[in-house]
Each structure stands twice: as structure tokens, then as C-alpha cells.
């Protein structure tokens, strides 16, 4: 029996005769195991003329030459489906999210290559719990719902987390897929967002945490919303409400350890104030 995985209504199985690949997929998807819900769709990976074909519900998604690449393609497709289904029901941000040991949620919205995954991985290594590194669905009251996909740690961040290197990764791989438990962190289903932090990795700049006005935060949140054009009225209300009620900051990341220290102190301040 193939395990069923899912998040935000996208449920699926992964079927392949490639034993090594099946084991790697099962390991990487462990935090997306799903017990209940609608009938799952089926991903199938087959070997053909030296390539690995990935299909969903019988339709070819793409072909790749290596296990690493076809796993990344699988995760890319899962991401698209999860984002589509999540955005139908909730305002969904291109964001990472985590929960501090004191229970405060943090939302980290940012475009690609800004440091979302690196920042949230740093928080997990510091004892925080995991919600997502890619897509955060948020209610009007500030509840953020998990999409606990494996962390996709790009090559440029590997030196920061050498202890997280997975087994069986080829030298040519572009990313590591690491689950939160492999990073020593637990996964939580949801959290209440207590701070919104827009990370921006800027090499050679000083690490700094700068407050943002509610209007600036709302605008940036809107720009970080998946499918805003389809749900504009709902999403504008959500981003405006969040921006008015939750403090927001820009985090310039020059050095990761300093950035994590800033976020820890921010969380401690909120915990003490509460």
C-alpha cells in the first residue's frame, strides 16, 4: 500500500518501481503523510530510455536524468497544486512560517532567493517548530496553517547547515530536501502569527531589523500573495487586517546567526510583553 500524502486538499500517492527513488520520496515526504480526506491523485515515476518520467494522473509532467532532479520536479508540482488549493480557501502567502518555543508564530514573506528557507531553517535549528518554507495560508484572525513540505535548501546555503546534508545526494544536485524532524524540529499544524518579518538577504550588509508601517506591510503582503488577482477583495481585506494588527519588520540578513538572534530577541520581547 502506497502512503498517502497531502496538504490543503491536494492529496496524492507516489508510485514507482525504482526502489531507491521510492525510499527517498517516502523520506522527503514524511511530514506530509495524510490519514483522511478525499481520494488521492497518483504520481507515477517510470524509467524510460535512461530518463525518469514523472506523470500525474496519467499526464506526463516532465522527464529528468537523475533521481535528485525528478524529486525536485515532483516537489515543484506538488507545490503548485497545494498553492492552488490553499488559495481557493485562504489568503496564501509566498512565505515561510515557524512557531517559537513560547508559542508565537512568525510569518516570513518574500520572493524567491530572499532567504525564506535559510531563515526558517536557522530558526528550526534554534528550537522553533516548523510550518512551511514556501506557502503559508492565513486566516483573517492571524492563524497560519502549515504546509510542512521538506525544506528545499539551495546549494548556496549548504555551508550554513553541513549537519543537514542528506544521504544519497549527487554532487551535481542543486538543492537538498530535508524534513523538519531531520533538522531536529517538530511540525505544528498551525500557529497564531505574532510578527510579520520580510527577510532580504544582502551579502556584505549589516544585519538589521527595521519596523514597517501598516500600509507598507499591507502592500508588501499583497505583493507576496499567491493569486491575488483572483481573490483581490478577500486578500486585500486579509492583508490590511493583518498589517493593522500584527507588527511588521524588514529583516536585512547579512549574517544568518545575527538574523536568528534578532528574531529570538523579538520573540522574547513579545513573550515578556504578553
Amino acid at each position, binding site marked *: 500500500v502506497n502512503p498517502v500524502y497531502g496538504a490543503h486538499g491536494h492529496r496524492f500517492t507516489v508510485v514507482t518501481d525504482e526502489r531507491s527513488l521510492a525510499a527517498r520520496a517516502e523520506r522527503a515526504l514524511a511530514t506530509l503523510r495524510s490519514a483522511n480526506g478525499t481520494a488521492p491523485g497518483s504520481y507515477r515515476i517510470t524509467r524510460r530510455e535512461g530518463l525518469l518520467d514523472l506523470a500525474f494522473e496519467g499526464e506526463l509532467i516532465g522527464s529528468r536524468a537523475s533521481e535528485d532532479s525528478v524529486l525536485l520536479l515532483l516537489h515543484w508540482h506538488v507545490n503548485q497544486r497545494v498553492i492552488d488549493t490553499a488559495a481557493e480557501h485562504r489568503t496564501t502567502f509566498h512565505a515561510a512560517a515557524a512557531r517559537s518555543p513560547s508559542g508565537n508564530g512568525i510569518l516570513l514573506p518574500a520572493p524567491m532567493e530572499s532567504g525564506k528557507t535559510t531563515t526558517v531553517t536557522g530558526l528550526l535549528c534554534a528550537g522553533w517548530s516548523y510550518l512551511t518554507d514556501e506557502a503559508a495560508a492565513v486566516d483573517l484572525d492571524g492563524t497560519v496553517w502549515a504546509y510542512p513540505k521538506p525544506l528545499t535548501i539551495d546549494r548556496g546555503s549548504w555551508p550554513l547547515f553541513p549537519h543537514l546534508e542528506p544521504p544519497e545526494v549527487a554532487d551535481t544536485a542543486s538543492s537538498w530536501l530535508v524534513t523538519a524532524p531531520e533538522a531536529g524540529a517538530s511540525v505544528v499544524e498551525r500557529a497564531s502569527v505574532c510578527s510579520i518579518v520580510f527577510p532580504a538577504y544582502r551579502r556584505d550588509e549589516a544585519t538589521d531589523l527595521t519596523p514597517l508601517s501598516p500600509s507598507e506591510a499591507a*502592500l508588501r503582503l499583497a505583493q507576496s500573495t499567491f493569486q491575488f488577482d483572483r481573490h*483581490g477583495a478577500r486578500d486585500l481585506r486579509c492583508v490590511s487586517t493583518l498589517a493593522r494588527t500584527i507588527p511588521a519588520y524588514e529583516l536585512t540578513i547579512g549574517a544568518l546567526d545575527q538574523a536568528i538572534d534578532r528574531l529570538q530577541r523579538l520573540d522574547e520581547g513579545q513573550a515578556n510583553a504578553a
Partner: protein
Amino acid sequence: MTGTPLGVQSVLRHAPDLVIEEFDDALLIWDERGGHLHHLDLVASVVWDELDGRRSLAEVSVELAATLQGGGDHIETDVLRLAETLLAEGLLEPASTSAEGEEPVTNGRREA
């Protein structure tokens, strides 16, 4: 009908189907028909609030100049320029003909 260009006697109002969120220093406006999100800074927000579909741009300018207490030497030009932009973006629409015998103002796009 092509209409006349926007002038200081034009009377404009907010377009329908806009979702507006007000902040102390800005407005965010979602244009449901156009499918665009607009950001108006503090100054533009003040002008926006005055465009109520009853007063001309000239009247609005006089009022804003009085509020600014002498700081509004070029205010009529600025109001007109902003109104042109917002009209072109579909956030404003003509409220009425500007004067008897004149054609309605347009947003610069010719109608078929």
C-alpha cells in the same frame, strides 16, 4: 463620441467596484474590474478623499490650498495631473458634464 479632455471644471467621482483600505498614510485600492491593486500615498489619498462627484477639480484645489495654508502654489496643476492619472487607470469616472453644452470628459481612451 470622444468627449473633451479633462479640465479644472471637470467633476469626478470614484469608480464603482473598488475595494478600498484606508491607512494613516496611504490607501490601497483593489480595482475589481481592472484586476489591479493601486497604492496611493498620503498626498494622493487626501486628494482622493475630496473627489466626491459634486465639486469640480478647481473647487477641490481651492479647498486643499486653504487647508495647506499657502503651501499650494501649484496645487491646481497637481490635482489635475493626479486626476488624469487616476482617470486613465479607471479609478475615477466623470460625475457629470462639466458645463452646459460641453461633452463629458473622458479618460483619454476613444470609444468605438
